């Protein structure tokens, strides 16, 4: 147990991220099921308006920050060092710190569900309720007097630190810790997409931090950053939020795109078609993603020139995105495709992302978008790209790399059930939403009138949601069953081309007994240019030093929620304690003898 609390091993941290994120995914999923149960009929009264507003806020916030990002992070952690032939990340303790901050931030945010009585309110009363996007000026103290928004803005600031720390860590790891011979254009596509993602993280998160700090100051110290009577504008929040928010959606999708770029070649037994283009389009998307933010604001009245510019940049970014899809199809074309579960999910990603991408193109046109934005049409869009896209991509990664991480294969039979239930479920849940939105149902409403004529479609959507839940249940059964009884995977159950398949499953603590020298992009395959590499020997020629664990990352991490409690509970001395714990932890960490 202690070894898990003090671990600085990227593989263990990856597993910690995975299970924690998956737990939050289940929580976010339950929130979604309650939402869908409420909306199954018009004028539903399963939950009150107040509860519903907390549910959709927490669903969005949880899924984005506590499920999707950390699930991706679990792969950054476990797989990236293996793919580049490294023994660990550049800063193992910083890595541990990122994880503990994530866990504590997630707990802080979700504690709000239960601690209502501490704030003279009921249980289920003080969870964040301003939407995951928290638009000012609804979030000002005047219109949201309770602690709900405080939980939200403080929780997000804690989580931001986790992501930033990981961002710095993985940038240095990928740029600096590559095995000899692994030039950047020999780095696997997943690691490349991870690198672009981390650059987006370290540049986008400071912007939302500033937005949240302004909100915090408005709510706690009486400033007027978003108050129109003082000459300010609530639109400033939207600009800052979406300057972060749009890169954020690329942060959410690029890792999954990277996973798909690994899974397809392995199971088609063909190299990734257009690797260079796939990499460069990822980089281009990273840059261009900064130029589209106001396409979330077409109804704000920015003026026809601004609307036209952002419409154009948004359409432009569809090009590098589309290019990837064509390259993936070309990877499959002419291949020898083995229909494993991982491949099913990777193909599912492509199929669903095409739909989500195309609905995105309809959003790119402001006059059309003005009928779509803030309705169920855009809810359809986001779920096609984030569920049909990111989540399917992540499951592809799970089925692909689970054997490497645990040494056992997941059941293919159960995996196929999982896939098809999820595929059917998600289309049933989200496709009708396109129509529901166009028929006039706005989003973020706890109930709707039967007169709208969308009752049947909503019921259909709810059934789909529960089908998704069933599929996840099947997945959980799969994990539990194969834990003890799963087939042993061996080093390389799939015939992979990249370095992680050259070592045991799970890998030894030092990863590679001998750091390989890499001569090409597909080291473990035989191609027309080269023979496959020789895998590292099972045991190292000389003992390999592996750094031990450390308590200080966790201790330092603890300082953050303590600090956050200070404004939440209006207790100044807590801030000092929090800062002291943080700085103390960092001090001990900085001067601890720790050799990588």
């Amino acid at each position, binding site marked *: 147990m202690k070894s898990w609390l003090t671990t600085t091993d990227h593989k263990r941290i990856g597993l910690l991220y995975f299970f924690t994120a998956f737990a939050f995914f289940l929580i976010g999923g339950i929130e979604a099921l309650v939402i869908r149960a409420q909306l199954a009929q018009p004028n539903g009264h399963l939950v009150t308006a107040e509860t519903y507003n907390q549910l959709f806020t927490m669903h969005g916030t949880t899924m984005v920050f506590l499920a999707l990002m950390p699930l991706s992070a679990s792969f950054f952690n476990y797989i990236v060092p293996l793919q580049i032939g490294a023994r660990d990340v550049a800063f193992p303790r910083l890595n541990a710190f990122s994880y503990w901050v994530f866990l504590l931030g997630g707990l802080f945010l979700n504690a709000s569900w239960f601690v209502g009585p501490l704030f003279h309110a009921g249980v289920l009363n003080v969870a964040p309720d301003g939407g995951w996007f928290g638009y000012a000026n609804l979030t000002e103290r005047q219109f949201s007097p309770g602690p709900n928004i405080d939980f939200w803005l403080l929780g997000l600031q804690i989580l931001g630190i986790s992501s930033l720390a990981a961002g710095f860590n993985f940038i240095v790891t990928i*740029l600096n*810790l590559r095995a000899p011979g692994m030039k950047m254009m020999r780095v696997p596509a997943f690691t490349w997409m991870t690198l672009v993602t981390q650059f987006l993280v370290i540049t986008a998160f400071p912007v939302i931090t500033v937005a949240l700090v302004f909100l915090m100051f408005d709510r706690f110290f009486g400033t007027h950053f978003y108050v129109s009577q003082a000459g300010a504008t609530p639109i*400033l929040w939207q600009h800052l939020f979406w300057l972060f928010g749009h890169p954020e959606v690329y942060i959410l999708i690029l890792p999954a795109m990277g996973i798909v770029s690994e899974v397809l070649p392995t199971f088609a037994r063909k190299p990734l078609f257009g690797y260079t283009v796939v990499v460069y389009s990822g980089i281009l998307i990273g840059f261009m993603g900064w130029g589209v933010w106001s396409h979330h604001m077409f109804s704000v009245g920015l003026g026809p020139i601004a609307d036209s510019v952002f419409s154009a940049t948004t359409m432009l970014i569809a090009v590098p995105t589309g290019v990837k899809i064509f390259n993936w199809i070309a990877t499959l074309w002419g291949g020898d495709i083995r229909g494993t579960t991982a491949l099913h999910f990777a193909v599912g990603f492509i199929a669903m992302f095409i739909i989500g991408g195309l609905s995105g193109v309809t959003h790119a046109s402001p006059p059309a978008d003005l009928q779509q934005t803030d309705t169920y049409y855009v809810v359809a869009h986001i779920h096609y790209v984030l569920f049909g896209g990111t989540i399917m991509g992540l499951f592809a990664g799970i089925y692909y790399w689970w054997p490497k991480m645990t040494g056992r294969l997941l059941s293919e039979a159960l995996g196929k059930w999982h896939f098809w239930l999820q595929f059917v479920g998600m289309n049933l849940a989200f496709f009708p939403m396109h129509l529901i939105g166009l028929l006039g149902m706005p989003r973020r409403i706890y109930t709707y009138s039967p007169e709208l004529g969308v009752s049947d479609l909503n019921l259909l959507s709810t059934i789909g949601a529960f089908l998704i839940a069933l599929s996840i249940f099947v997945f959980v059964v799969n994990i539990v069953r194969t834990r003890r009884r799963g087939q042993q995977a061996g080093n390389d159950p799939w015939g992979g081309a990249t370095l992680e398949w050259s070592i045991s499953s799970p890998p030894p603590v030092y990863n590679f007994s001998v750091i390989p020298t890499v001569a090409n992009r597909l080291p473990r395959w035989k191609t027309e240019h080269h023979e496959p590499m020789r895998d590292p020997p099972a045991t190292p020629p000389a003992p390999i030093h592996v750094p031990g664990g450390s308590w200080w990352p966790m201790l330092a991490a603890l300082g953050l929620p303590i600090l956050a409690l200070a404004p939440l509970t209006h207790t100044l001395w807590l801030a000092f304690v929090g800062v002291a714990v943080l700085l103390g932890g960092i001090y001990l960490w900085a001067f601890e003898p720790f050799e990588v």
Partner: protein
Amino acid sequence: MTHAAVAHSAAAHHTSLGLDNRKMAFWAFIGSECLLFTSLISTYLVYKGRSVVGPYPHEILNIPFTSVSTFDLLMSSLMMVLALAAVQRGDMKWGKIWLFCTALLGLVFLGGQVIEFTEFVHKGLTLQTNLFGCTFFVLTGTHGAHVTVGVLWLLTLWVRALQGKLTSANAMTVEITGLYWHFVDVVWIVIFTVVYLIQ
């Protein structure tokens, strides 16, 4: 924690790009901080001239006083350069002196901020007064917090030097400290220009 400790400088490790890991991480951090300050400065600029009530910048900002503060911070960067040079050549006597001087000038800068902010409050400009108040204080306050962290960092190094635990082998640490300190200085130049000089 359970292994024989060798204070083995990470700089001796081979890296793919030849750059020390910590230095690279720090440059990434500086890149991130640039976005932070850009957001704060942009907000200041967007809200410039939109305060509904005074006091207004031209009534309150004391350019001569702040110019001296700015000069002080610039000089502290010079001290930092000298500190690094001393540590790199193993001259810990001067290393300690210059580190301390850097921290001292940083403290003087902070003292100047305290005086300035107190003055503003007396003249009726607080966080809550108007848009100039909130954007100004949050921007310069964030910068001041960064300076404070820097001063603590420098003093920590200075104490370790006094204890004989800082040597030329730690030059990379001092270099990174310098990177931070110079960055904080550059940010101040930008703030001084945007807020004080261009009105």
